[in-house]
């Protein structure tokens, strides 16, 4: 069986470096999302009901 067919059978297998890079990206996305959740929550507290009461 050719190397290409082998690769197809097993799907894409990540190397250690690719796994490390993916883990780093996932952590960065998680931290960014968590920060935004906290920020928007605090902004909502600061602005109060005025946040929704705005001219279009």
């Amino acid at each position, binding site marked *: 069986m050719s190397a290409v067919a082998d690769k197809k059978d097993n799907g894409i297998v990540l*190397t250690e*470096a*690719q796994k490390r*890079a993916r883990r*780093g*990206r996932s952590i*960065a996305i998680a931290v960014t999302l968590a920060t935004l959740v906290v920020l928007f929550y605090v902004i909502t507290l600061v*602005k109060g009901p005025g*946040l929704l009461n705005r001219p279009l």
Partner: protein
Amino acid sequence: MTRIPSLAARHPLQPSAVADDARFEPSLATAGDYIALLKPRVMSLVIFTALVGLVIAPGHIHPVLGFTALLCIAVGAGAAGALNMWYESDIDAVMERTAKRPLPSGRIGRDEALAFGIILSVFSIVTMGLMVNALAAGLLAFTIFFYAVVYTIWLKRFTPQNIVIGGAAGAFPPMIGWAAATGAIGLEPILMFLIIFFWTPPHFWALSLSRADDYARAGVPMLPVVAGAQETKRQIAIYSAVLLPVGMSPWLFGFAGAAYAALSLLGGALMVAFSMRLLRAVGQRADRVAKQLFGFSILYLFVLFAALLVERGFGLAIGRLSW
């Protein structure tokens, strides 16, 4: 004026070919590569000048909203940087200074960079509009458009005046900061805009003097490439001379105190002195003086805005003129 053949005509490397293969392989891009797309060093100056505009503006903005405005400005500036790298990946690939960036090195694909830039642009503008105010959001949108489209796509490969006109994009942040705090624009943010606008040509041309070969190889019509080193030095001297009174204008209009006046006079005079030394220098000495001027220009802008921040932000402006 020397005509530079387009990069596409001289290099088989087309923008779309730079990193397209990357999409067929699992990515090796790290979070740091995505941060590099945001041009963090440029972003730091943007954040600082925007902070000064925000703090010295009259009125009050809640610290959380002030932080949000700065975050939006920082992310918007970063998004413009990502869009710039998306469009310029062909140039970056042939320039020594930029060849290791995430796109030319193939760690991030062009499509990813484009999507990253667009998403962050929309996110920063919408958040600014919803959480701060519409004027600041509009100015931020215009700044991103100006940098990504007017400067990057149109001017940069078309005219040696690219960084003169394109420099306006870097001059908007203090105005956006001011607009975030007040919801309006006054004379003071316009003066801050003008300081950065007239500071950009001597700052950038001093750098490009030592990178002329790189720009010529990439087919970018920077002033040293199309008009020569001597003409560039002359233009640097002219803009430095104009920058001196423009740098002092916040004091002349009564917005800043004596400390700012002294620092802006001294800094402006040193900028002129460096540019005159550069005008007379030749060979390796000219390279050295150009690098000194480039380094000093960063210090000059930082000191001027720091002085405004201290004087106005903390109410220490003594010796203000009144007309």
